[in-house]
C-alpha cells in the first residue's frame, strides 16, 4: 500500500456545496404525502405508579386516528445488554418525560391537543436522584423485579446497581505499602446534552404486504431495525430503515427512540406517520451524558513512579440501564489511562435513579473519567513538587507497554502529542497574574464490528460506492470514504458517487458512531474497490489482449504496463458492461484488541481497539472579581495514526474541543426534585461563537500496526474528552482553587475563591498524606 495521490490531502468533502446551498435533504426536510403527525405523551412526574389511564376523550377528538397506551403493547423491552426498558410505561413511570402514550392525528397541534386530554392518575413513589443513596441496601428499588430481566450473564448486579465492573492488576495493598506519598480526591461531573441542531425525526409507512419502512435520521440503521422489529414482533427483514441526512447526532441519534413508535402508529392507522421530537422534549428526556462521581487514591514513590492506583466511579444510569453498563467498563479503562500502573483496583457502579436514561454522548464515560484522573495527577504532581508535565512523562505508556487491562500498546504517539501540545502554549514560560496553564491526556477506542461496502463501475467511468451507514457530519462518509475509494481506483474524487443505502441493501454496518466510521467503512471501501479493480482488469484483459497481471489501472483508464499507449478508459469499460458484472463487495470486521480476561469482570467493553492518543493544553485567565474564565490559548494534539484528510481531522478536533469547553463551563442538565429544569436553549447554555476560543489542532501520526488501513486510528469522539480536565487544571494554576465539580461556572469559581481560607472549603479539597 502506497498512499500517495489523495490520501493526506485536505480535499473538500462531497456534500459541502449542497449543504451551503441549502439543497441537502435532512430528515427534517423529508416528507411522505398524506402523513399523519404524531406526538408522545410523557410523564410529568419522576416516579409513580400509574393507577388509571383514560384516553377516551382523546380518542373521540375529531382528527385523531390512533391513541396507543403501554397496555396495548406486547410485553417486550428495548434490546440492551440488560433488557429493562419498556417501549411505553405500562404500570410505573420512572423518570420525568418517560413516554406513556402515543397519539397520531391529522396535524401535530391536534395530536398534542388529544394527548393533553389523556387522563392519568398517579400514585407517587419515592424519588431517587442521588446514585450514592440509591445504591444503599435500604433504598427503595426502582426496579423491584430486577431479577426477572434478561441480561448478559457476565453482568454483576443487584438492586439499584445494574452493573458492577471490577478491574484489578497486581496487588493494590502491596503497592500502597511501597508508596512514599498517597493522594486521594473526589470529583463529580454533570450531565450534558449532545445539542444537535436538527431534531430527531422519523416517518413510517406500512405496506400492504405487511412490511414497514421507516425513514429517519438515525446514526445506526441496522440497530434501529432490530428495535423496530422487536416492538412490532416482525422479522427484521420485513422492516426497512431508510437513513436520511443528519443534522448532528453525537450519539443522541444512536439508539432507537421514536422510530418504533411511528412504525406502530403506521400499522395501526394504515397511513404514513411522522413524528418530530421537539427541543423541549429532547432536553427533558433525550439520551444525554451520564453524571458521575469518582474517588481516586494513588500511591507514588518520591521519584514520581506510580505504584498503586485505586478508583471507584459511580455512574448515574438514570431510570434504565441503557448504555451505562458500557460506561462502567470505559470508566475502568479511562481511569487507569494510558499509564504504566503495576497495581490497580477499579470499581465501576452503574446505578438506577429517577432520571432520563443517560446515553452515549460522544466519548461516553471519557470526559467524566479524565476530569477526575487528570486533575488528580496534577494534585499528585504538586504533592511531589514535580511539574505536572514531568509526572506524566515518567508514567505514560509507550510502544510495548501493557496497560491495566492487559492490552499491549503499539504505535503510541502519546509522548509526541504531550510535548507538542505543551509546546504550543509555551508550557515552560511563567504565566502572568490571574493566568494559568493546564493539560490533560488520555486514550480512546476505535469501535470495530462490521461494515460492508459495494462498489460498482458506472456510466462515464464513475465509481458508485454504496455504504450501509449515513454521513452524520464528520465527513467520514462524504469525505474520507470517497477519498479512499478515489485513491484506490485511480480516479478523481469527484468521480466517486457515495450512496447511503437503506437496510434493504443488506450492506450491514455497525453505524456512524464510536470513532469507527472512517476506519471501518473506509477499510471496507478500500477492499471493495480492490475487488472491483480485479474485475475491471479481467474485463480489460479481453479488450487489450493482455493478462490482468500485465495491466495497470490509473488516471481513469486501464493500460498495458509495458505499453502505456495501449489502453481502455473506465468509461469505455462501463459502456461495454451490459451484464452489470463490474460490481464488487467487501466486508470489514477486524479482530478486537486482546486483553487479559482474568483482570476484568462484569465488563462489557473490556479493551480499546486501535487506540488513539491525545493531549490538550490550554492557558486561561480567571477574573478574581467575577470568577469568569477566559480561554487565552487552546491546543489539541491527536495521534490519528495516519491522517487521511487533515482539514476534516482538524474540524473534528476543533468541534470536539469546543463541546468540551461547553461541558467545562456552561452546560448542565439540571434536575430538581426529579424534574428537569432547563429545557430550552435559553436556559441550557451552549457555547456560541463568542464563547469559543480558536483551537490549534496538532496532528500526530504514529501508524498502528495490524488491520488498520494505512495505520489510521479512529478520531471522532476523543477531542471532546480532555477539555474539562485540562481547563480545570489551568483554572487551578490561575486562581489557586481546584474545582472538583462540573460545570466550572463563574459562580462556582467565585464561591471557591471567596471560601478560600475557611475550613469548610478546604475539607472538599483533595487530600494528600505522607
Amino acid at each position, binding site marked *: 500500500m502506497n498512499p500517495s495521490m489523495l490520501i493526506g490531502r485536505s480535499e473538500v*468533502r462531497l456534500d459541502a456545496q449542497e449543504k*451551503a446551498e441549502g439543497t441537502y435533504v435532512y430528515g427534517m426536510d423529508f416528507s411522505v404525502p398524506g402523513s399523519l403527525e404524531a406526538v408522545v405523551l410523557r410523564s410529568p412526574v419522576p416516579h409513580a405508579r400509574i393507577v388509571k389511564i383514560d384516553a377516551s376523550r382523546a380518542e373521540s377528538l375529531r382528527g385523531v386516528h390512533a391513541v396507543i397506551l403501554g397496555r396495548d403493547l406486547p410485553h417486550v423491552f428495548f434490546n440492551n445488554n440488560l433488557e429493562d426498558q419498556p417501549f411505553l410505561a405500562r404500570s410505573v413511570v420512572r423518570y420525568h418525560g418517560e413516554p406513556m402514550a402515543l397519539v397520531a392525528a391529522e396535524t401535530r397541534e391536534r395530536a398534542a391537543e388529544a394527548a393533553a386530554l389523556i387522563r392519568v392518575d398517579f400514585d407517587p413513589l419515592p424519588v431517587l436522584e442521588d446514585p450514592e443513596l440509591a445504591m444503599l441496601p435500604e433504598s427503595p428499588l426502582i426496579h423491584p423485579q430486577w431479577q426477572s430481566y434478561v441480561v448478559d450473564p457476565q453482568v454483576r448486579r443487584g438492586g439499584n446497581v445494574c452493573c458492577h465492573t471490577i478491574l484489578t492488576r497486581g496487588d493494590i495493598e502491596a503497592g500502597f505499602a511501597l508508596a512514599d506519598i498517597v493522594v486521594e480526591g473526589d470529583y463529580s461531573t454533570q450531565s450534558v446534552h449532545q*445539542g444537535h*441542531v436538527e*431534531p430527531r425525526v422519523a416517518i413510517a409507512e406500512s405496506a400492504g404486504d405487511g412490511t414497514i419502512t421507516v425513514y429517519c435520521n438515525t446514526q445506526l440503521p441496522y440497530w434501529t431495525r432490530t428495535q423496530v422489529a422487536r416492538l412490532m414482533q416482525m422479522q427484521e427483514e420485513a422492516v426497512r430503515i431508510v437513513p436520511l441526512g443528519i443534522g448532528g447526532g453525537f450519539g443522541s441519534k444512536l439508539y432507537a427512540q421514536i422510530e418504533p413508535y411511528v412504525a406502530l402508529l403506521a400499522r395501526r392507522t394504515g397511513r404514513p406517520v411522522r413524528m418530530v421530537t421537539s427541543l423541549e422534549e429532547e432536553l427533558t428526556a433525550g439520551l444525554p451524558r451520564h453524571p458521575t462521581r469518582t474517588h481516586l487514591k494513588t500511591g507514588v514513590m518520591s521519584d514520581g513512579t506510580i505504584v498503586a492506583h485505586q478508583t471507584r466511579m459511580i455512574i448515574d444510569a438514570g431510570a434504565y440501564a441503557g448504555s451505562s453498563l458500557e460506561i462502567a467498563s470505559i470508566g475502568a479503562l479511562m481511569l487507569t489511562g494510558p499509564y504504566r500502573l503495576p497495581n490497580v483496583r477499579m470499581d465501576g457502579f452503574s446505578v438506577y435513579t429517577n432520571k432520563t436514561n443517560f446515553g452515549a454522548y460522544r466519548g461516553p464515560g471519557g470526559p467524566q473519567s479524565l476530569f477526575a484522573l487528570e486533575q488528580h495527577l496534577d494534585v499528585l504532581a504538586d504533592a511531589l513538587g514535580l511539574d505536572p508535565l514531568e509526572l506524566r512523562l515518567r508514567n505514560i505508556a509507550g510502544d510495548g507497554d501493557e496497560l491495566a487491562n492487559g492490552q499491549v500498546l503499539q504505535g503510541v504517539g502519546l509522548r509526541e502529542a504531550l510535548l507538542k501540545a505543551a509546546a504550543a502554549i509555551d508550557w515552560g514560560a511563567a504565566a502572568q497574574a490571574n493566568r494559568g496553564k493546564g493539560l490533560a491526556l488520555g486514550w480512546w477506542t476505535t469501535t470495530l464490528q462490521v461494515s460492508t461496502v459495494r462498489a460498482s463501475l458506472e456510466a462515464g467511468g464513475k465509481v458508485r460506492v454504496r455504504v450501509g451507514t449515513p454521513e452524520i457530519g464528520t465527513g467520514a462518509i462524504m469525505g474520507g470514504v470517497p477519498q479512499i475509494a478515489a485513491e484506490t481506483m485511480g480516479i478523481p474524487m469527484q468521480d466517486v458517487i457515495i450512496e447511503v443505502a437503506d437496510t434493504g441493501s443488506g450492506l450491514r454496518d455497525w453505524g456512524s458512531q464510536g470513532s469507527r466510521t472512517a476506519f471501518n467503512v473506509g477499510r471496507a471501501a478500500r477492499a471493495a474497490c480492490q475487488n472491483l479493480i480485479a474485475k475491471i482488469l479481467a474485463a480489460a484483459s479481453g479488450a487489450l489482449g493482455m493478462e490482468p497481471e500485465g495491466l495497470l489501472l490509473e488516471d481513469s483508464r486501464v493500460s498495458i504496463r509495458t505499453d502505456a499507449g495501449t489502453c481502455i478508459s473506465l468509461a469505455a469499460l462501463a459502456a461495454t458492461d451490459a451484464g452489470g458484472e463490474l460490481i464488487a463487495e467487501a466486508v470489514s470486521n477486524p479482530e478486537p484488541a486482546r486483553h487479559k480476561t482474568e483482570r476484568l469482570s462484569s465488563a462489557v467493553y473490556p479493551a480499546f481497539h486501535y487506540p488513539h492518543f491525545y493531549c490538550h493544553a490550554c492557558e486561561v485567565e480567571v477574573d478574581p472579581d467575577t470568577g469568569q474564565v477566559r480561554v487565552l490559548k487552546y491546543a489539541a494534539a491527536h495521534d490519528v495514526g495516519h491522517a487521511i484528510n487533515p482539514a476534516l481531522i482538524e474540524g473534528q478536533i476543533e468541534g470536539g474541543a469546543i463541546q468540551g469547553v461547553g461541558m467545562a463551563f456552561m452546560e448542565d442538565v439540571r434536575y430538581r426534585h426529579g424534574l428537569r429544569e432547563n429545557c430550552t436553549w435559553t436556559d441550557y447554555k451552549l457555547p456560541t461563537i*463568542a464563547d469559543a476560543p480558536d483551537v490549534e489542532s496538532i496532528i500526530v501520526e504514529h501508524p498502528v500496526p495490524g488491520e488498520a488501513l494505512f495505520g489510521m486510528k479512529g478520531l471522532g469522539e476523543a477531542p471532546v474528552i480532555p477539555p474539562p480536565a485540562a481547563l480545570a487544571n489551568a483554572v487551578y494554576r490561575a486562581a489557586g482553587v481546584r474545582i472538583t465539580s462540573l460545570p466550572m461556572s463563574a459562580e462556582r469559581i467565585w464561591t471557591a475563591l471567596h471560601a478560600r481560607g475557611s475550613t469548610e472549603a478546604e475539607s472538599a479539597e483533595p487530600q494528600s498524606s505522607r
Partner: protein
Amino acid sequence: MSAHRDVVLEVNGNRHALRVDPGATLLEVLRAELGLRGTKENCLEGECGACTVLVDGKAVNSCLMLAVRAEGKKITTIEGLARGGELHPVQRAFVEEGAVQCGYCTPGFIMSAVDLLESNPDPTDDEVDQGLAGNICRCTGYTRIRRAVHAAIRHGGEPA
C-alpha cells in the same frame, strides 16, 4: 382556527400570492408553502438561528416572524444567494474553508454572515463573534466559521 389571509410575499426576487393562516410563521410558509427547505427548523423560539433569513437585508429568525408581517418586504433565503450558478462568496468560503460539517446550521450562519458583511465589510474578530452569536453550531467549534468569514471578505462581498 382563524380565517386565512391572502398575502403576497416577495422571496428571492419572486412574488408569490399565498393564502396563509394568520398565525403561520414565515419559516412555516417558506418551508411548507414555497418548498424552500434550505431554511432550517429546530427550536422554534429564536434560540438556535438555523432558520435565519434576510428581511429587507437584515438577518431575522424566521420562526419568530409571522408570514403576514413579511408582506411588502424583500425576503432572501439561502436558495436566493447564488447568482447564475455561482455561489455567493460567503457560501464559497464556507465550502472551501471546511466550515461545513453536518451543515444543518450552515444556511442560517451564511445568512447572518451576509448581513454582517453588508453592514460592516471589514469586521474585527469581536465584531464577527457578535454578529454571529445568534447562531448555534455544534459541530465545528466555530474556528473555521470565523476563518470562512475572513476568507469571504478577501473574496469580495459581492456575488460574481
